[in-house]
Each structure stands twice: as C-alpha cells, then as structure tokens.
C-alpha cells in the first residue's frame, strides 16, 4: 500500500508539472480585477445543483455557491485532498468507530440576500440531499445512503451520524453539486425555488441569466476566503457547437473553456496563437463502457462477452485514438492512478483484454467463440450520437471485433432515444454506456457495475458481486478496501465479463495564457468556483488590444 501511495504521489506531482505556470506565482503577483469570459457547451436546465448532473449548470452556477468541504482548489489533481470550504480547520476525522463526523462552521458568512449562514442551513441542505421529502428530487440521494442523521446542536456545529463507517462519505460530501442553501429559503420559498432562483454564499453574486445566451456574475465583496475572488466578475457564454467555442478562444471572444477539447483542436489553437495559448491536461474521471445486454442471446453467455473484451487492443488503441479523440489511459474499473485502483502491471497480468500480446488474446477469443458456437457472430453496437468520444470509440471497437471475424454494425441514436433504449426499451444487443463522475470516489463510482445500481443496463443478477460490494461499502480499512475492490473488479471484468472498459477519457484544456491561477482537475465538474483565477491585464492587452 505504501509503495502504491508513493507512486500515486509521484503521479500527482507529474500531473501538477503539466500545469505549466498555473498557480505557481507568489500570492502578491495575483492581480485583482478584470472579467473572465468562459464558454460552455451546454444550456442550463435549472440552477439547482441537487437535481442536475450537467457541467452546463456547474460551470456558470457553481461560483455563486459554497460547499461544506471541497476538493483542494490548490491541488485539484489529487483525488484524495479535501479541504474545508464553509467549515473551519481541517476536514474532521471520524469518531465513534468511524460513524460520526463533526464539522465546525464559519462565522460571518452571508448569503447574497444578506441572510447569515448557520449550521441550520448545512443541516437543511444535507437533509434535502439525503432525505428529500416525497415528490422532491435529489439526484445524489444514493451517495448519502450511509447517513443516518444530520444534527445542528449549535449555530456553529454540524454532526453527521453514519449508519456504518464509510470510505465514500467524505468524497460524497465534497461533490460540487452539494450547493449549500439557506434553510429559510427552503422553508419559506419551497424546495423547488432554487431551480429558478439563485441565493448562495459563493465567491460571486448572481447578476443575470439570459436563457441560451449567457450568465453573468460579479464579485462577492463579503466572500469569506480572504483576498478572493481576484476577478471583478465573469460571463459564462453558452455555445453548444465545439467549433464556435474553439474559434471564440482563437478570435478573442472568450478566454477559456473548462470541459475540454480534442487533441486536434488543441494543436490548431497552438498553431494559430503559439504561446498565447496555455494547455493543461489530465486523466479524466469518465470512461466509456461496453455493455452487453445479458437478456439478448448470445450475450447471455460469458464466453461470448469475454471474447469481445479479449479482442480489444487497448494499448494500441490508446496510442492512436489519443491523437484524434478525448480518450487515452488504459485502466480498470477504478480511476487510473487512484490508490485503490489496479495498476497497469496488475491489469496486464490478471485481467482479460489487458495483455500486450494481442495476437494470443485474439486467438483465445476465437477459441471461446468457437466453444460457444458463435464463430461468425453478427450483431449491432448501439451507440450515442455524440462524436467525442462515442462515435470515434464505437468505430474503433467495430474494427477490433472485425479482427476476430465478427460482423458488427453501428446503430447511433440521439441522446433521448439512446437512453430510452438502454433504460426502457432494452432492445439492443451491445451498447456503449458511460460512467462519468465528479469527485474521484472509486468505491462509489464502481456502483455503476452493480446489477442493482439502477444505472447498469446489462440486465443481469449476481449475488456474489452484490455481496462483495456490500462488504466494500461497509469497511473503513484501506487494505481491506483494496482487496475487496480487486475482487469486485475481477468478478466484473473476468468471471462475468458483465461489462468491460474501453479507454479512460483524457481532458485537454487550451486557454488564453493571460488567464492565471486555474488548475485542472480530473473532472470537468471540479474546481469551478473561479475564485483562484486572475487575469494578467498587461498580457491580455497585448493579446487582445484595447
């Protein structure tokens, strides 16, 4: 475990090294003032973080709100570094055998409308998230299954009582969607008021939202992190087409885009603007998963599913696809590089489809298909009508399967019918599915592979898998967690081949070099409060004029 942690720390350091210049300036060099113009590729369904799951809401709205704790904005590439936001001091260690967490809350924090924040607001927020009343949606209720109760014994203390010790509690509390709302707003204005109204304690105050166009925010003069935010304000411009977002940065109409561009876009920008463009890159906590429908023959046969996984050359795919698509890293079911996840060496030796001897793997795949009586299998790969990276990866998979004699066609659907096919119609043979999470929280993230999760579209049952996960969820011991995690992974990818991993996504953020202080995180949902960002006005003037 120690060597794994050392390796992980080294990889974090390496990741940080890719962040050229960002955040490395002394505090005195950070310039106050200016306005950031960011482009977002999605519209805002509502302002309510508790029910939304899109970056289209997080990027423009997150700066208006605070969290109880958060991923360290000075070290967001680390998936295990959490710091207090509205609480004070260090993130608390659990007491009562890992079942009680006590947070001390900041004094003097005010909402945009002037209400003072107390622990009652934190309790009301997490009560809404974990125990929403009938008819009230909470999109992350399942993440808080370990919470027994939340108490606010005095205005500056919040106590979370857990049903069992859990390694997923802290990452779940730090999720960027857990906006802290005012208890008074919830009580007086109702539980749906925040869908269409904003009242937060974040670094910026809400000014305006024109649907389909832009959101503007101005500096919160009473912000509790001293000296921050540096910016006077920001405008979040909505631009669904990637080419518009890219050209907007090139043509001086926007400064940054936080979701990420494919490699070709990065290269085009660098070619056009040279050192006026800064680039940060990172592994991304998103992955495309091949999902065979176990209710459709012959995909009820594990040998057929194993053959599909064995025939995929992930290592070569990584090399070539990373030049044209937002995928790169070969990994198992857990975020690559996380201490609990399997190492590349382990995967290569122990998990089917990860060997570098692809010819041997494909021979084995052919033998399995022959044994199952499906040597010349024909089937349809169901895919989502989104280029990056769905259609690119789907086309690559078809080519991989053709190499063992399979005849595969692609069936592409727009998002709404795509999810209807997966969830309600179930009339697909093999589909690409998607697991994309905010805070890196592998134990919670792998629930996607659990038949009972509600988000698994392979349609099968396996008591052993459920039992391993139940044990994993309830253990606080890191060594035991790692052991159970590996068992779970082996069961999913080897024994059942119930679903299998393609390649992990790779995040590439090119932006104007006068934007300073932002650090990339392994998720496009994280580190979006904008409070660390500042504008080098001299450099901006040099690049844009006036």
């Amino acid at each position, binding site marked *: 475990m120690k060597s794994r942690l050392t390796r992980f720390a080294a990889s974090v350091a390496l990741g940080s090294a890719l962040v050229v210049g960002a955040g490395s300036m002394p505090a005195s060099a950070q310039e106050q003032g200016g306005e950031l113009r960011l482009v977002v590729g999605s519209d805002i369904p509502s302002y309510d973080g508790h029910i939304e*799951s899109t970056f289209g809401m997080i990027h423009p709205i997150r700066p208006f709100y605070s969290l109880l704790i958060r991923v360290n904005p000075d070290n967001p590439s680390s998936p295990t570094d959490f710091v207090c936001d509205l609480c004070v001091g260090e993130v608390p260690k659990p007491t009562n055998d890992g079942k009680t967490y006590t947070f001390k809350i900041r004094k003097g924090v005010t909402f945009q409308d002037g209400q003072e924040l107390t622990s009652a607001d934190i309790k009301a927020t997490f009560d809404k998230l974990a125990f929403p009343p009938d008819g009230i949606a909470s*999109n992350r*209720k399942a993440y808080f299954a370990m919470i027994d109760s939340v108490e606010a014994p005095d205005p500056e203390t919040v106590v979370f009582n857990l049903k069992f010790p859990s390694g997923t509690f802290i990452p779940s509390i730090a999720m960027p969607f857990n906006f802290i709302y005012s208890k008074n707003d919830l009580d007086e204005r109702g539980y749906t008021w925040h869908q269409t109204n904003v009242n937060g304690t974040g670094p910026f105050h809400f000014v305006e939202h024109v649907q389909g166009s832009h959101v503007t925010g101005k500096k919160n003069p009473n912000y509790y992190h001293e000296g921050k935010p540096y910016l006077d304000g920001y405008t979040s411009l909505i631009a669904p087409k990637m080419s518009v977002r890219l050209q907007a940065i090139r043509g001086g*109409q926007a400064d940054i885009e936080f979701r990420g561009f494919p490699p070709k876009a990065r290269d085009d920008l660098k070619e056009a603007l040279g050192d006026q463009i800064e680039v940060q890159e990172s592994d991304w906590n998103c992955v495309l998963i091949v999902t065979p429908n176990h209710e459709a023959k012959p995909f009820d046969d594990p040998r057929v599913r194993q053959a599909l996984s064995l025939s995929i050359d992930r290592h070569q795919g990584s090399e070539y696809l990373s030049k044209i698509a937002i995928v790169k890293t070969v990994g198992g079911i857990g975020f690559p590089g996380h201490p609990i996840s399997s190492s590349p060496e382990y995967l290569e030796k122990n998990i089917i489809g990860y060997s570098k001897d692809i010819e041997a793997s494909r021979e084995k795949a052919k033998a399995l298909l022959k044994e199952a009586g499906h040597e010349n299998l024909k089937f349809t790969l169901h895919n989502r009508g989104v280029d990056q990276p769905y259609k690119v990866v789907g086309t690559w998979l078809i080519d991989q399967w053709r190499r063992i004699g399979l005849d595969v066609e692609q069936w592409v659907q727009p998002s709404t019918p795509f999810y209807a096919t997966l969830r309600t119609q179930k009339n697909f043979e093999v589909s690409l599915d998607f697991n994309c999470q905010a805070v890196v929280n592998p134990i919670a993230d792998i629930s*996607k592979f659990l038949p009972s999760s*509600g988000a698994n579209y392979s349609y099968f049952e396996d008591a052993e898998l459920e039992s391993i996960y139940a044990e994993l969820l309830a253990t606080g011991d890191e060594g035991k967690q790692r052991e159970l995690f590996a068992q779970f992974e082996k069961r999913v990818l080897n024994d059942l081949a119930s679903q299998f991993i393609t390649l992990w996504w790779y995040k590439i953020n090119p932006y104007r070099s006068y934007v300073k202080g932002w650090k990339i995180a392994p998720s496009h949902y994280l580190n979006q409060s904008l409070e660390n960002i500042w504008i080098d006005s001299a450099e901006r003037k040099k690049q*844009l004029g006036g």
Partner: protein
Amino acid sequence: MYTYIIKRLLMLLPTLIGAAILIFLLLRLVPGDVCLLKFGGEGSYADPQQILQCQQRLGLTDPIWQQFFDYMVGFFTFDLGVSMWTSQPVAYEIAIRFELSLQVALMATFVSVVIALPLGIISAAKQNSWIDYLVRTFSIAGIAMPSFWLGILIILGLLIGSQAWFGRPWMPPIHFQSFFVDPVHNMSQLIWPALATGYRYSAVATRMTRSAMLEVLREDYVRTARAKGLIEKVIINKHALKNAMLPVITIVGIEFAFLMGGLVVTEQVFNLNGLGKLFVSAVTQSDYTMTQALVMLVVAIFVLMNFLVDIMYAWLDPRIRYS
C-alpha cells in the same frame, strides 16, 4: 375584398389546428422523454422513483387524450405553458430570442432584396450578354452554397484575415446585445449571418426576378410601350417591374417566414441565440411544450406571410379580385 380577407383569416384556423394535432402526435412517437434525459443524461444513476415523479409533475404519465386535451386548451387560450427543460414560461423563452431572429430575418431579407432586384432586372434586360452570364453564375453559386457553409467560410476568413492584417485574430461576438443597447456590438455580430443567409436567398430571388422580368418584357403591352417610343428605363420601371414582382414577392415572403424559424444550422455556426437554436435544443431535449410552441409559431408565421402575400397580390395587380 373584405369578404375575401375574412374568409382567408377563417381558413387559417383549420391549418393551425391540423398542424397542432400533427406535431403533438409526432413528438410522442419518439422514444424517451425529458425526464430520462434530465436525470440520467450524463450516464449517472437515475432513480426510477425520481424519473416517475418528474414525469408525473410534467403530466407525461397522464393518458394521451388527457395530454392532448390540456394542450388544446392551452392552444385556444394562448397559454403556451412552461418549458419542460428549464421550467421557465415558454412565452418568455421565445420572447428573449424573438428580437434576434426578427432582426436577422429582416436584415437577411434586406440583403436578399438589395442584391436580387437590380441583378435580376439587369440580367433580364441584358439577356444573353456577359452581364447576364455573370449574374447567373453568381446566383447559381448562391443556390449551390448552403448558407451555414458560407457562414463557416466567413468566420474562418475573418479569423485568418484579421490575424494577417491586424496581427490578432478576430471573430464576431458570440452573444447578443440589442441594437438599442449596443448597436456596434449588435451589428458586428449580426451582419455576417445576414450576409450569409441573404446571399443564399438573393440567389433564388435573382433567378425569379430575371425569369419574371423576361416573361413580362415579352408581353404585348411592353411591345406597345416600346412602339410608342418610351425609353427602356421607363418601360422597365413603370410598366414591367410591378407586374414582374408577383412571384418575387411570394418567394421573398416565404423566405422571410423560413428565416424566422428555419435558420437552424446558421444560428449554430454563428452561435445566435435565436428561435432556430432554441428549436434544436427543444427537440434534442424532448421538451414537448417548447417544441410544440415553436412549431406552432413557425406555422403561424408561414400562414400569416402567405396571407399577406395574397393581399399584396391584389394590391399589385388590380385585376386580381377574390370573391
């Protein structure tokens, strides 16, 4: 004439009702709904109870006849409802985009008419000359070139040209400011899509103007005018042009209606927050209320434009009277 106008107005109603029924039924044939997309569109866990609650709240679990009844009640009471995606009133969502779409449509129509009329007339007057060939090549190129593609070329041209000439690349603004708030920002954003779409539609109108003028110039009364010794300028402007305008006005009217809601791709290319972009979002998000309202708006604009064109026919050609 008044009886005709009243009859035509009454005939608009069945057209609108027919379109309303059709769009209601077609939307519900597509599998999936806004709740499925909203709560699980990013591949996340989607609580079936939560999806059901959302569907109940939006009336998607009601029997289809009940949904249709509610929709028709809204239709007849001018209540467009609330967007299923944003929870904002549909009327508000449309209103904030209407100004932009109207301005682009007016500017593009202006560009189209300014190019089409002189070119079409010159082309007809100088039939089979080099000028005629040049105009015909110009108009065929316009028809062959989709306006969104021309839009992409314009943006790339601006980026490359501005970098080459001024040392820094420039592209038009990507968010809308009303002309009455910031006219420079407004025009520097909208002039380009107006040119791209205006050129495309001018090509159709140029060809229509040319062929209508050629037809009129062969009429007996034009020959008589020439025999009387009138100069060509007077013959064209006073005698031929007004009569040649009937098909041109039809084309321009239909184009204008199309521009109001049909600039789907061009709006995406220039990132215009107009009705076309809203249309795309509403369809991809399975936002039934918004899609229905937008379809009905476009249908209403089309039937209204047809109606106005018919009325203008009667004004332009006094022989046309409807009983």
